[in-house]
């Protein structure tokens, strides 16, 4: 039998419920593994063993009773304010009970640590943080993805079996793709968000699960949604594909793995693949960036920008100041583009059940220089990654990244997007794909990070 900590989230919960595993032992094992493996990947930035033990002592008999999880540094806990990965997050914070915290607590889960994240949630790479960068367990010299870098790295390194991330412009799906995990970006408004410092103003951010496979995402997602995400089937799945830079301007190995996975999914569901058109996609990408950046500026004043914490990275300081210059009329246009994209998607989802394209155009780039080589040339990872991640945040639809391959020893992810409220279908489709490839990719585990040879 595997070490209990290596079991899937749902099997940990079942083993505890059956009395086969003692929850206190599992918590101790998680804390010990964090101590052992975390120094090489910097996924977990805070642990609080006494608080975790108090949570366990008070844990109700919920679906995650006694199961250790990690939560991103984006929500307050009753004993710790979030830092948003930054020395200065331009918002007042204080310890408190956030929606995801309450959902986890009421499900009986035990929060064992706080996950690292990219500074201010502002990148798809995870290579900048007030805590230092998190590292990809598949290769510690590579980006883990962002902004939910720590939650993803923690699950990939099997410090825990499930973690809560947040996705405002791809921030769950990018690290899921880079770290070989399954990550669900829920339909907007469907998952717990109370207590997030931007919950009242953001129209793009959602909380969501990062786990090894779709079954675990279903369980942790059900907890965050406050309702059971029932399993169905994906038979007869109509898969939409697009011939655009999002699926064409990608590294050849990524393209091949994703096309192969789409064919596997089609065959497994006895479905069909249909070509679709999304002419608004390029405009939608910028619109998402404009909206997400503008919504984060509510607390900003010139005086505040002139007095940023000097520990905030130069990148963070420069980007915050640049955001002030984005023209208001462009943001107005961005809302119009949102309407156009939502209407187009409503039509598209009459013809197909899911839209499929690579989560990321290339495997995880180096931490020191996050650039990717694509057929069109060399691009910053952020500029390339946002093409595929933004649409779901702009329009509110759910999306999932599932592992479908490997290149240079680094994972490749396929993204599936569905119509509003069809989060369950995405999980059904992901499970169908897992069956089709005999769970090869969801069961792939990186070597312990400390044993990985680093690049010269």
């Amino acid at each position, binding site marked *: 039998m595997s070490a209990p900590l290596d079991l899937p989230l749902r099997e940990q919960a079942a083993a505890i419920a059956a009395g086969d595993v003692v929850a206190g032992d599992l918590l101790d094992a998680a804390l010990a593994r964090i101590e052992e493996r975390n120094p090489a990947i910097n996924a977990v930035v805070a642990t609080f063993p006494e608080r975790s033990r108090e949570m366990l002592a008070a844990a109700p008999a919920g679906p995650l009773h006694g199961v250790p999880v990690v939560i991103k540094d984006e929500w307050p806990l009753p004993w710790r304010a979030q830092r948003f990965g930054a020395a200065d997050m331009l918002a007042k914070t204080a310890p408190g009970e956030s929606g995801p915290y309450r959902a986890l607590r009421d499900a009986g889960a035990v929060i064992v640590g706080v996950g690292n994240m990219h500074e201010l949630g502002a990148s798809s790479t995870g290579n900048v943080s007030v805590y230092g960068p998190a590292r990809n367990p598949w290769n510690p010299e590579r980006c883990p993805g962002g902004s939910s870098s720590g939650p993803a790295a923690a699950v990939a390194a099997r410090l825990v079996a499930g973690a809560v991330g947040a996705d405002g412009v791809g921030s769950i799906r990018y690290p899921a793709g880079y770290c070989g995990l399954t990550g669900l970006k829920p339909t907007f*408004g469907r998952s717990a968000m109370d207590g997030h410092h931007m919950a009242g103003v953001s129209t793009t951010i959602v909380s969501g699960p990062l786990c090894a496979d779709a079954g675990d995402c279903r369980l942790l997602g059900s907890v965050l949604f406050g309702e059971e995400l029932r399993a169905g089937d994906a038979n007869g799945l109509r898969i939409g594909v697009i011939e655009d830079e999002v699926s064409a301007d990608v590294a050849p190995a990524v393209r091949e793995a994703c096309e192969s996975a789409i064919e596997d999914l089609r065959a497994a569901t006895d479905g069909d693949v249909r070509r679709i058109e999304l002419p608004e996609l*390029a*405009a939608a990408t*910028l619109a998402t960036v*404009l909206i997400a950046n503008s919504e984060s500026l509510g607390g900003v004043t010139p005086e505040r920008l002139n007095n940023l914490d000097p520990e905030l990275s130069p990148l963070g300081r420069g980007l915050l*100041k640049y955001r*002030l210059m984005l023209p208001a009329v462009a943001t107005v246009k961005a809302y*119009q583009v949102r309407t156009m994209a939502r209407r187009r998607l*409503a039509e598209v989802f009459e013809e197909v059940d899911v839209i499929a394209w690579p989560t990321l155009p290339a495997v995880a780039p180096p931490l020191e220089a996050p650039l990717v080589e694509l057929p069109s040339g060399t691009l910053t990872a952020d500029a390339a990654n946002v093409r595929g991640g933004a649409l779901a945040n702009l329009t509110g639809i759910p999306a999932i990244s599932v592992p479908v391959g490997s290149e240079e020893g680094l994972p490749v992810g396929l993204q599936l997007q569905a119509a509003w409220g069809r989060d369950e279908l995405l999980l059904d489709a992901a499970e169908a794909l897992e069956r089709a490839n005999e769970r090869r990719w969801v069961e792939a585990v990186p070597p312990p990070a400390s044993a990985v040879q680093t690049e010269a």
Partner: protein
Amino acid sequence: MEDGNDADDFIPAALAAFGVEADEIELAVMRAAHELFWPPTLELLALDTSAVAAERDPDLSQAPPRR
């Protein structure tokens, strides 16, 4: 600023107008951001959206209402 992409003019002028200070490193970051964001921003501004009435207070958890 004919092509709308002259960061050396645009960024210092905008900073001065807002009364925001920046050091050399921050300016370099802003120039890089401008290179990345400004061309698509101009494309977005050039998009004719006169016929598009944006949804008022859209419910992003649902499909848009049928027109």
